[in-house]
């Protein structure tokens, strides 16, 4: 098993393409976007069936990479999250095939 870093970004759906471009430009080899159902934050509850514009929907983006790429990605995500609603965490994970990340 090999050590890598895992980014978990919860961000508003409208900004997920911006986040995706950051992952790609920083050399992350892949990411997965998952829909979020509902939540609470900033004093407000939200749920994905509240409005037809889907502008309050949130998604979760998961990506795994080496320390250098994850550090570069986090620098850019800091700028993105300065504008958009979201939360990002980085954790240590183990992977089977290191050449993929």
């Amino acid at each position, binding site marked *: 098993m090999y050590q890598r870093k895992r980014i978990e970004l919860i961000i508003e759906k409208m*900004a997920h393409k*911006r986040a995706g471009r950051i992952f790609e430009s920083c050399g992350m080899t892949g990411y997965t976007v998952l829909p979020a159902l509902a939540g609470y934050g900033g004093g407000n509850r939200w749920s994905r069936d509240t*409005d037809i514009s889907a502008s309050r929907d949130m998604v979760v983006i998961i990506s795994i990479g080496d320390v250098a790429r994850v550090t570069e990605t986090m620098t850019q*995500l800091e700028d993105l999250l300065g504008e958009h609603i979201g939360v990002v965490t980085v954790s240590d994970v183990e992977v089977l095939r290191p050449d993929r990340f």
Partner: protein
Amino acid sequence: MDVAISTLLSPIILFFALGMGAALLRSQMSVPEAFAKGLALYLMMAIGLKGGVEMSKNPLTVEVMLVLLAGVVLSFIVPAISYFFLRVTTKLDQTNAAATAAHYGSISIVTFVAATEAVRMSGLDSSGHMVAVAALMETPAIVTALFLANRGAKRETPVAGSERGELIREVALNASIVVLVGALIIGWIAGEEGTARVEPFFVGLFQGVLCLFLLDMGLSAGRGLRQGWRELSAATIGFGLYMPLVSAALAAIVVMMLGMDTGDGALLITLAASASYIAVPAAMRLALPKAKPSIYLTLSLGVTFPFNVTLGIPIYIYLAGLMSGAGG
């Protein structure tokens, strides 16, 4: 008064009230998300086709062009007035006031559809080109709002990950604009004869689908209000109730100046008075992400939309009747 009562007691409005009441009472009732989006697409296609067919019967006159232009001008002006009222009467900051103002300058296509039905039930006629007016009024408000929001506060560098043209794509090519304008053109090209084969689907089922959609809109409005009401001050809620009337008064003057008939006039007034909750919220998340959706979306969807579909539309029809008489 008869128009008001028949509008309020129509199945469309009663289903809306059912949805809103159910959401406020925390019922688990819901319309599946994909189904609701399908209903919205159907309504846009139906209203676009109907407008296109009506337009194919009449030539594009100078009078029609003036109405189209008036719609665009109203959409540019209303956000500036909304912004002024928001800044003077509420404590919203520049960004939130501008984002909210964009919603009130743009239009609600569902309010427009409900008004079209109310106009029809009142025995009045409306023209197909009013659908084109609706489509044209969707986006100018966003331009005004961005100007108001960015005065002296524009970022020097774009947000990380943003792409040139993404906002224009979101605004000009959002699903509601593409389907509405596309169906309008298809209806215009195909004409009455060409669309006869799809009429049972788009005309026969329209009322029932509208009831289903308004049930979902009621649920959305109720849930939005329940979840976001804490963000709204009394002054902000007041804005959501009086601003449609201010916009309606402005549009009524245009109706009188252009000598529009009552049906078309009522629709123009309704468009000016309605607030967006589909196209603009999505655009605002990209253009002004620091603005709070819990303010602008709760206000347009939870306060102004219910006001317009219940009390507003009968007022606008009455107002259009007065102005048509004054102009004629």
